[in-house]
C-alpha cells in the first residue's frame, strides 16, 4: 500500500492508468481511496477543459465507479457540479473537435446513470434529478430536428431509465410525450415509442388515475411529481382506477409501429406490452395477429419474443403449437445459425413440450410429441447439438410412454416403428462410440443419452411412480440388454459403462436403478463371459458388483476362482507378469468383497478362492497376499476386518470416525505414543496363565533384580548362596561336564571302575537315558510351554484411552475396541534362555461383564471361528510362552507388549510378569525312539530305579559321566535325598497325585494302592506291582538297599521299621514311584509311601537346588 497518496492525475495518460487501476480492483484501486472526493472534482473539471482528449472514457469511468467516487458526504455538491457540467456540454455548440454528439450523449447517459445509482432522489434533494429531467426534456422536445436526432434518441433513453428507476416520474407529462412520439418520424422514433410505452407501463402497474391526453401541465419547467416523494408511492391522492379508455387508445397507437423497432427494441417493447395487454384486457389474439409472424424470422430474439408471448397467452395461441415446434426445429437445422442458438432452440423446444405436456390439449399431445421425433441428429450436426437432440428424443419417448400409459392403448410412434427403434435410430449418429476409445466425446454423448433416458427427461421433475413405470417399459429391458451386449462385445466400453452405473449409484434418487443394472449384469454376464485373459477388462465391473451388498457374491467368486485356475494353468515363462498383475487384481476384488460384505456370506467361497491361491498360484506375492487375506478373514471379525482392509474409502454402515484412519491409510508406524496411556497398560491388558500355579507365592522373586542376559558372569553378590553355588557348579561343570570333543581327547578324565553287573546294568540304563537328553549348548534344548491367555478389558481400555464416544453408536462386537498386530516380547532374569516373542494379529476387547452375557457372539460375523468355544474365548488370544530352561528353577517371565489400536497408535509397555513354577518344568522322561510303546512302562521303571540308585549318596555311579545327545557334552549325577511327611489321608493323596502327577507315575506298588489307583482309571500304562514288599522303604535305608528295594525289602521289615521309626499311618498301603524330568537334564524322583492317614515321600534328585521348590510344591499340592 502506498504510504503517501499518489499524485493527482492531470494528463489523460494519468487518468487512463487510474481508470485501469479502478477496474483492476484490489490494492491497485485501494491506493486511490484517499483521493475519492477530489478525484471526482478533478474529473469533472477535466471534462470541461477544452483540450482534453480523454473525456468520454473519463465520463464512463465516473459512471462505473460512482459508488466510490461520489461519497455521501460530498455527494450534493458533486452532483450539482455534474449537472452543471452536463448543462454546459449539452448547450455548447458542436465544434467537431472538443464538443461532439458523442460526448453530449455520453454525458447525458452517464449523468443519468450516476444520479440513479447514487439514488440522488433520496440522498440529495430532488433538485438534481429534476434539473436533469428538465434538461433531457428540453433535448427531446424538438421532434424531427435534423442533426441531433440521435442525441434525442439517447435523451429519450435517459428519461426512460429514470422512469424505470422512479416509476411514474414522467406520468404527469405523458400527454406531451405522446404527442412528441406521434410527431417524431426519424429513426429516433423507436426511443420515443419505448419511452411512451415505459411511462404507460408504470402508470398501469402503479394504477395511477391520470389522463395521458392531458397536455395542460407544461413540459418545462418540470415539476417533480408528488407521488414519487410521498411516503406512499402507490399513487394515493391521485384518484382510483385507471383511465382505461385513454390507455387503450395509447396502446392502439403503440401497436401500430412494431415494424420500426429493431429486434432488441422489439424485445423491450414486448416485455412491456404483454403485461399491459393483460392489465387493459386486450384480446391476446390481437397480439397474435400482429406479432406471430416474427416466428419466421431468423433473428433469435424475435423467435424468443414469440415464445414468451406463447407462454403468456397460450390459450390464444393454440393451434399454433405445431408451427412453433416446426419453427424451433428449423432453427436447430439452420446451419447458418450460431451454434448456441441451435442449442437454445432445442432447449426451448423441450421447455415448450414440457409445458405442453402439462397444460396442453389432450388430443394434440400425441401429434405434437410425435413431432419431437423429427429431431434426429444430422450427420454434420456438432456433437453438442447431437447430444441435446438425443435428449429431446429421450424426452419424447418418455412422454410417449406416459401417454401410452394414460390412454392405455398400445401406441406405435411413427409409421410402425416402436419407440425403441426410434431411439436406436437416434443413437446411430454417435454409434462410433462402440469402437472409439472410451474417452471419446461420442462415447460420452451416447452414454449421457442413455442416462437421460433412464432417469427421465432432465426437464421434467418426474414423480417416482413415473420412474417405476420406466422399469417396466420396453426401453428398460432393451437398454439393459444393450448394455450387457456392449460389455461382452466391446470391452473397451467397460470403463464407461462402469462410470454410467456409478453415476446412477451416486444419485440418491437413482441409486436403486444402478443397483438393478448391476444385478442384471451379475445375472447375465457370468454365464456368458469366456474365461481367458480378456476377462481382465471386466474387472472394473466386477469391482462394482463386489462392492454391492445387494448382489450375492457367489457367482462372481465362482468366476474368479475359475479365472485363478486358468491363470495357474496358463502360467509359463511368458506370462509371469500377467499372472502377477491379474492375480493381484483378483485379490483386489476379493478385498473389495471383504470390505463390503458380511464375512459369513463370503466365507465359504472366498476362503476357497484364497486357499487355492495360497496353494497353487505361481506368483509369490499373490500367494502371500492371499494368505494374509485368508488369515485375516479367519482371525478378525467382520467389521474390524472391513476397517482394516479399507483403503480409506467410506464404507456403508461403518462408522467413519472409528475407522477413519485405517491400517493402510495411516502414516507408517507412528513413533508417537502417549506415555501416559502406555504406562498403565497392565491395568487393562492382561496376560494370564491358563493353568494357575499351585505355589502361590514364589520366593524366587529374589532373583529378579539381577541383570538379564549376562547372568553367567554376574552371579554372586545379591543372589543367595544356594543359587550361586548352583550356578557355579553348572558352569564349572563339576557335576555337569560339558566339554568339547577335543577337550575330551586331551583330558580323558573318566576314571575306570570296577563294577558289578548290577551297577553296569544301571549305568547302561542311565547312559541310554542320558543319550536321549539334548544338550542345549549344542542343539535346541528341551522347550517348556506355558499356555497363557491374552485379553484386555474394553471398558477400562476405553477409559484409559479417552472417550471413545463414537463407538457407543455401535452395538455388540462392533462396539468393542480391538488390538491389531500385537507383539508380545518376553524376557526373564531366570536362566530360561531366550524366549521367542509371540504375535497376535487381532484381539477384541473383552466386553464389560454385563454386556456380553446377553450379547454373546450373536452379532459376530464369523460364526465359524467361534464354534465350539465359549463366549469368553472370543476375547482371549492363546499365547504360549516357550523357553528352554538352562536350569530347573522357578522364575518370572517379564512381558512386554507392543500393539496398535484402531487409530493407528502404538501402545507398548510392560504387562504383569508371568510366574513360572517348578511344576511348569515337570516333564516326562525322554524315551529313546527305539522303545516299543508297550515296553515304555518298564523302561520308565528302569530309568527310575537306575536314577534312584544313582542319586543315593553311596552311588557307584557318582563318577560316571553320561554322554548327552549329540555326543559333545556329558552329565554326571550328583544325587541328593530328602524326605517329606505328608499328613493327609490316602485317598486325598491319591486324588491329588492323580490330578497333578499322573503322567509322571512310573509304578504303583501294593495291592491295596494298586486297586485304588487302577480303579481311578486316570493313571494308565505304568507298572503295577501288587507285591507287598514294595512298601518297605524307609528314610534310613542304605543306598544300596534302596537300589535294590523292590527286590530286597520284606513287608514285615518295612512294617516294623515304619511303625517304629516313623510312627505314622497304621497301615501302609503301598508305594507310588514318580519320575519327573527337569529340563535341561535333571530329575526328581519321588517315592510316596502311602498309608491310611499319612504319606512319606522319599525325594531324590540329581539337582539339589530343586529340593526346596519341590518341598514347597508338595506342600501346596497336598496340604493346602
Amino acid at each position, binding site marked *: 500500500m502506498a504510504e503517501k497518496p499518489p499524485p493527482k492525475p492531470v494528463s489523460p495518460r494519468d487518468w487512463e492508468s487510474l481508470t485501469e487501476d479502478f477496474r483492476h480492483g484490489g490494492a491497485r484501486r485501494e491506493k486511490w481511496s484517499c483521493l475519492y472526493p477530489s478525484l471526482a472534482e478533478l474529473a469533472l473539471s477535466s471534462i470541461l477543459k477544452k483540450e482534453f482528449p480523454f473525456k468520454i472514457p473519463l465520463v464512463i469511468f465516473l459512471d462505473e465507479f460512482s459508488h466510490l467516487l461520489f461519497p455521501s458526504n460530498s455527494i450534493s455538491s458533486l452532483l450539482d457540479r455534474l449537472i452543471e457540467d452536463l448543462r454546459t456540454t449539452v448547450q455548447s455548440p458542436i465544434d467537431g473537435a472538443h464538443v461532439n454528439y458523442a460526448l453530449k450523449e455520453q454525458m447525458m447517459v452517464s449523468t443519468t446513470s450516476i444520479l440513479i445509482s447514487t439514488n440522488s432522489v433520496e440522498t440529495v434533494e430532488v433538485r438534481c434529478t429534476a434539473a436533469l429531467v428538465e434538461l433531457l426534456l428540453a433535448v427531446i422536445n424538438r421532434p424531427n430536428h435534423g442533426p441531433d436526432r440521435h442525441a434525442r434518441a439517447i435523451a429519450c433513453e435517459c428519461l426512460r431509465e429514470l422512469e424505470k428507476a422512479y416509476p411514474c416520474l414522467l406520468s404527469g407529462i405523458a400527454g406531451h410525450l405522446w404527442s412528441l412520439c406521434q410527431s417524431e418520424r426519424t429513426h429516433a422514433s423507436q426511443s420515443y415509442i419505448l419511452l411512451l410505452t415505459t411511462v404507460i407501463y408504470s402508470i398501469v402497474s402503479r394504477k395511477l388515475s391520470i389522463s395521458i391526453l392531458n397536455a395542460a401541465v407544461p413540459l418545462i419547467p418540470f415539476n417533480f411529481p408528488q407521488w414519487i416523494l410521498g411516503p406512499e408511492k402507490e399513487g394515493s391522492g391521485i384518484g382510483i382506477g385507471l383511465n382505461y379508455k385513454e390507455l387503450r387508445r395509447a396502446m392502439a397507437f403503440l401497436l401500430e409501429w412494431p415494424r*420500426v423497432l429493431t429486434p432488441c427494441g422489439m424485445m*423491450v417493447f414486448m416485455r412491456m406490452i404483454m403485461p399491459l395487454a393483460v392489465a387493459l384486457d386486450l384480446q391476446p389474439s390481437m397480439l397474435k395477429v400482429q406479432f406471430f409472424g416474427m416466428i419466421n424470422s431468423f433473428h433469435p430474439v424475435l423467435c424468443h419474443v414469440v415464445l414468451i408471448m406463447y407462454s403468456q397467452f397460450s390459450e390464444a395461441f393454440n393451434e399454433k403449437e405445431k408451427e412453433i415446434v416446426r419453427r424451433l426445429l*428449423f432453427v436447430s437445422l439452420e446451419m447458418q445459425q450460431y451454434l448456441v442458438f441451435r442449442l437454445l432452440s432445442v*432447449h*426451448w423446444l423441450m421447455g415448450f413440450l*414440457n409445458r405442453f405436456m402439462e397444460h396442453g390439449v389432450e388430443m394434440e399431445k400425441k401429434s405434437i410429441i410425435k413431432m419431437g421425433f423429427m429431431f434426429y441428429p444430422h450427420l454434420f450436426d456438432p456433437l453438442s447439438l447431437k447430444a441435446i437432440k438425443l435428449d429431446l428424443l429421450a424426452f419424447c419417448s418418455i412422454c410417449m410412454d406416459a401417454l401410452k400409459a394414460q390412454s392405455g392403448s398400445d401406441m406405435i410412434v411413427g409409421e410402425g416403428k416402436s419407440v425403441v427403434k426410434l431411439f436406436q435410430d437416434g443413437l446411430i*449418429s454417435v454409434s*462410433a462410440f462402440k469402437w472409439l476409445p472410451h474417452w471419446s466425446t461420442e462415447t*460420452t454423448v451416447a452414454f449421457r443419452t442413455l442416462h437421460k433416458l433412464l432417469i427421465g427427461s432432465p426437464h421434467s421433475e418426474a414423480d417416482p411412480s413415473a420412474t417405476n413405470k420406466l422399469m417396466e417399459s420396453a426401453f428398460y429391458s432393451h437398454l439393459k440388454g444393450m448394455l450387457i451386449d456392449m460389455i461382452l462385445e466391446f470391452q473397451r466400453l467397460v470403463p464407461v459403462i462402469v462410470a454410467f452405473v456409478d453415476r446412477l449409484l451416486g444419485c440418491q434418487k437413482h441409486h436403486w436403478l444402478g443397483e438393478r443394472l448391476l444385478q442384471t449384469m451379475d445375472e447375465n454376464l457370468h454365464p456368458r463371459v469366456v474365461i481367458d485373459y480378456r476377462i481382465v477388462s471386466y474387472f472394473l465391473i466386477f469391482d462394482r458388483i463386489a462392492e454391492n451388498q445387494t448382489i450375492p457374491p457367489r457367482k462372481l467368486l465362482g468366476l474368479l476362482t475359475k479365472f485363478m485356475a486358468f491363470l495357474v494353468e496358463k502360467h509359463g515363462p511368458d506370462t509371469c507378469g500377467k499372472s502377477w498383475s491379474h492375480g493381484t487384481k483378483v485379490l483386489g476384488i476379493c478385498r473389495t468383497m471383504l470390505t463390503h460384505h458380511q464375512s459369513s456370506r463370503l466365507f465359504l467361497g472366498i476362503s476357497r478362492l484364497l486357499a487355492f491361491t495360497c496353494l497353487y498360484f505361481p506368483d509369490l506375492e499373490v500367494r502371500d497376499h492371499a494368505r494374509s487375506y485368508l488369515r485375516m478373514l479367519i482371525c478378525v471379525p467382520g467389521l474390524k476386518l472391513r476397517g482394516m482392509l479399507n483403503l480409506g474409502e467410506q464404507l456403508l454402515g461403518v462408522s467413519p470416525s472409528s475407522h477413519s484412519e485405517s491400517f493402510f491409510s495411516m502414516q507408517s508406524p507412528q513413533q508417537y505414543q502417549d506415555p501416559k496411556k502406555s504406562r498403565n497398560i497392565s491395568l487393562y491388558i492382561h496376560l494370564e496363565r491358563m493353568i494357575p500355579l499351585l505355589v502361590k507365592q514364589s520366593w524366587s522373586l529374589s532373583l529378579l533384580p539381577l541383570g538379564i542376559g549376562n547372568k553367567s558372569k554376574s552371579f554372586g553378590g545379591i543372589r543367595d548362596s544356594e543359587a550361586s553355588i548352583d550356578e557355579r557348579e553348572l558352569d564349572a561343570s563339576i557335576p555337569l561336564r560339558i566339554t568339547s570333543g577335543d577337550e575330551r581327547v586331551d583330558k580323558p578324565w573318566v576314571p575306570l571302575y570296577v563294577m558289578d553287573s548290577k551297577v553296569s546294568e544301571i549305568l547302561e540304563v542311565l547312559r541310554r537315558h542320558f543319550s536321549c537328553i539334548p544338550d542345549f549348548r549344542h542343539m535346541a534344548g528341551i522347550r517348556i510351554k506355558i499356555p497363557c491367555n491374552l485379553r484386555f478389558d474394553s471398558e477400562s481400555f476405553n477409559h484409559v484411552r479417552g472417550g471413545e464416544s463414537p463407538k457407543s453408536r455401535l452395538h455388540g462386537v462392533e462396539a468393542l475396541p480391538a488390538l491389531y498386530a500385537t507383539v508380545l516380547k518376553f524376557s526373564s532374569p531366570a536362566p530360561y534362555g531366550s524366549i521367542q516373542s509371540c504375535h497376535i494379529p487381532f484381539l477384541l476387547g473383552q466386553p464389560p461383564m454385563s454386556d456380553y452375557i446377553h450379547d454373546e457372539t450373536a452379532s459376530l460375523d464369523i460364526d465359524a471361528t467361534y464354534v465350539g468355544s465359549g463366549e469368553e474365548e472370543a476375547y482371549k488370544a492363546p499365547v504360549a510362552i516357550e523357553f528352554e530352561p538352562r536350569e530347573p528353577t522357578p522364575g518370572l517371565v517379564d512381558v512386554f507388549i507392543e500393539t496398535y489400536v484402531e487409530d493407528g497408535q502404538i501402545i507398548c509397555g510392560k504387562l504383569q510378569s508371568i510366574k513360572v513354577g517348578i511344576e511348569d518344568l515337570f516333564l516326562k522322561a525322554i524315551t529313546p525312539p527305539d522303545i516299543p510303546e508297550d515296553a515304555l512302562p518298564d523302561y520308565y521303571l528302569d530309568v527310575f530305579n537306575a536314577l534312584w540308585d544313582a542319586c543315593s549318596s553311596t552311588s557307584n555311579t557318582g563318577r560316571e559321566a553320561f554322554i548327552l545327545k549329540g555326543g559333545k557334552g556329558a552329565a554326571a549325577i550328583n544325587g541328593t535325598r530328602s524326605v517329606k511327611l505328608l499328613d493327609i489321608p490316602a485317598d486325598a493323596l491319591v486324588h491329588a497325585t492323580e490330578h497333578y502327577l499322573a503322567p509322571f507315575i512310573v509304578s504303583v506298588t501294593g495291592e491295596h494302592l494298586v486297586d485304588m489307583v487302577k480303579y481311578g482309571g486316570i493313571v494308565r500304562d505304568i507298572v503295577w506291582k501288587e507285591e507287598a514288599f514294595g512298601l518297605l522303604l524307609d528314610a534310613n535305608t542304605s543306598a544300596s538297599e534302596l537300589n535294590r528295594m523292590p527286590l530286597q525289602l520284606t513287608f514285615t521289615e518295612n512294617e516294623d521299621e515304619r511303625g517304629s521309626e516313623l510312627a505314622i499311618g497304621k497301615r501302609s498301603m503301598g508305594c507310588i514311584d514318580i519320575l519327573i524330568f527337569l529340563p535341561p537334564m535333571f530329575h526328581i524322583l519321588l517315592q510316596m509311601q502311602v498309608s491310611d492317614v499319612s504319606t512319606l515321600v522319599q525325594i531324590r534328585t540329581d539337582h539339589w537346588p530343586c529340593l526346596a521348590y519341590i518341598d514347597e510344591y508338595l506342600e501346596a499340592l497336598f496340604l493346602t
Partner: protein
Amino acid sequence: MAGDCSIRALWILNNLDAVVFSRRFPAVEKRWRAACQSENESSENDSVKYTVFSSLPSDSELAAAFSDRKTREGSVRGFGIRVSQSKEGSDSWVDDPITRHIAGFYINREEEGEDNLLWPLALHIKGPYCILILPLVEPRHVKAYTRVWAFMVAHAIGDIITGDVADPEVIVSQSPSVGGLLDSLTGSIGITGISRAKPVAAPVASSVPSGAAAIGALASDIPKSGSRLLDKDALRSFISSSMPFGTPLDLSYSNIFSIKANGFSSLDIPPQDLKQPAWKPYLYKGKQRLLFTIHETLHAAMYDRDEIADSLSVSGQINCRAELEGLPDVSFPLTGVGTSKIETLSFHPCAQVPERNVYKQALVFSPPLGNFVLMRYQATCSLGPPVKGFYQLSMVSEDEGAFLFKLRLMEGYKSPLTMEFCNLTMPFPRRILSLDGTPSIGTVSNAEHSVEWKIITSGRGLSGKSIEATFPGTVRFAPWQSQRSTSFRSVLEGTTDDDSDNEPENANNMVNIEEFLVEKMNKDLPPVDLEEPFNWLAYNYAKASFKIVGASISGVSIDPKSVSIYPTIKVPVELSSQVTSGDYILWNTLGKCPSAVNAEV
C-alpha cells in the same frame, strides 16, 4: 423487474486470461441489488438460503475466476457434458452442452470468505478474445441454479419457455452482441465480394468508418490480432450507443457506426407520413437498383454403400442489397420454393411473412440499408450430387495403403451451371512418406498429412458436360509411432492405461491389418470438442471442395421480372448464384464411416 433485459456488465479477455476491456452498468446493478434484497426478504422462510453475489467483481477478480474456471472445466469453454473429470459444482457437471455457452464463475473474495457464484455469463469466443456478458436475471434463477447443481440434476436452463422464467436465454440471444455483429460484418463483406464483378457505388457501405472495420478485423481475424490492440474507443462508443444503460437497443454495428461517424445533417429529412425505422437511420439516395445473390452451401456424405444412403443437403440464403430511395416495400414470389424440397425457411426481420403458406405467396420486405441476408433455407439437392463416385482405401501393409477414386463430375448439370474449380483432399493423421499414382485428370500434390487432387483448376470451368475422373494410387506412411501425449491422455482418463495386458491377444484376434491399424490408431485419438460433428481423425475420407456458379442447385430462384416495388418504380434487378461446398465428404467405402438416420420433416 418485468420487461427487463439488461446487462449488468461485460468483460473482454484476451488469450492470456487478462481483462482487456470491461464495462459495468451501475443503473442495472442497482436494479439487481434491489431484486436481491426483495428476494432475500421474500425467501426468509425458505429452507434453502443462499445469498446471491450481489456486487460485481473487479477485473482482476474476474480474470482469476476465469482462469479458475478454465482449469476446472478443462478449457475455456469446458467439456459441456459430464465427463469423468468433471467436478461437482462445475459447469460440466450440469451435463448440458449449453454450459459451453453459459458459464458460471466462482468469484473468490477474501473478505467475504466464500466463493460466490456469478451466473449466468454468456460466453462468446471470437478470435483471441473471450467475451463475457453478465445479464440481469432474477436472483431466484441464480438460486435455482445453485440448487440445481446441489441436487445434481442436470437442469441448466430449466423451463426456459415457461412464462416468467424467460430471462436467461435473453442474454444468450445477446451474447453475440459484440461478436455477432462482427460476424455479420464478415457476412456483408462476403456479399460485397460477390457483387464485386459489377462495380457498385456503395455510398452507405463506404460510410462505415474505419473504426468499425478495425474492430471487425480484430475480432474476426486472428492473425492480425497480435499486431493490433483492441480499439477501446470504438468499442466504448458502440456500447454507449447500442446499450447506453445496459439494455440493448440496436445491435447493428453498421447503423451505429454510420451514425457515429456521419451524424446527421439537416438535409436528412424524415419521410413525410411514415416513421423511419430504427434499423434504417439513413435513406438511400442515388441511382436505384436491386441486387440478389443466392448463395448455397452443399453438404454431402457420400457412402457408396447399399446399407447407407448418400445424403445431400443444401443450406442456402438469399442475400440482398437494395439501393432504393425512400422506404419502399419490395415483393417477389419465390419461384422454385414450392417445387424444390425446401425444408426450412426463415427471414430477415424486415420481411413480412404471410401468415399462411409462406411458400405460395409473394414475399414482401422493406429493405434495410446495405447488404443483408433476406432469407435462409435448408433444402435437399434437386439435382444430383455434383461430385459423385467412390473413394476406396485399403491398407495393404501396416504402412502402405492403396486407394482408388472413381468420380463423375457435374452429371446431369446443364449450362449455365458451371463448376469453377474442384479439389479433392484426403487428410491422413499419419505422416505421408510418398505417393504413387496418376489421376486421369488434374494434378496431385501431397503435404505432410494430406493429399490434394486438383481435378478442375480455376480458369477452366466445367460447364454443360460431365466428366469422369479416376485416380488409382498408393500412399506410403511413415512407420507407425504412438503419438499419444501421455499427459493429455492421463488428464483425460484420470487413470493410467492398463489395457496393455490385452494387447497381444487383440492383435491375434484381429481379422485383418485394417482392423489392427484402426485399433492402434484409436488408442491415440483424443476426444473432440463438442462443436465437431464427430471425430474426424477416426475415419478415412476425402473432402471435395468446389464452387458452382450459374444457378442454385436447390431450385430456389428469383425471377427478376416478377420483382415489384411499392411505391412503384422501375429499377434494374440483378441476380447471381453460387454454390460452394461445405462438408462434402466421400467416405472410404472400405472403412468405417459415421452415419445418421434421417427423419422426414
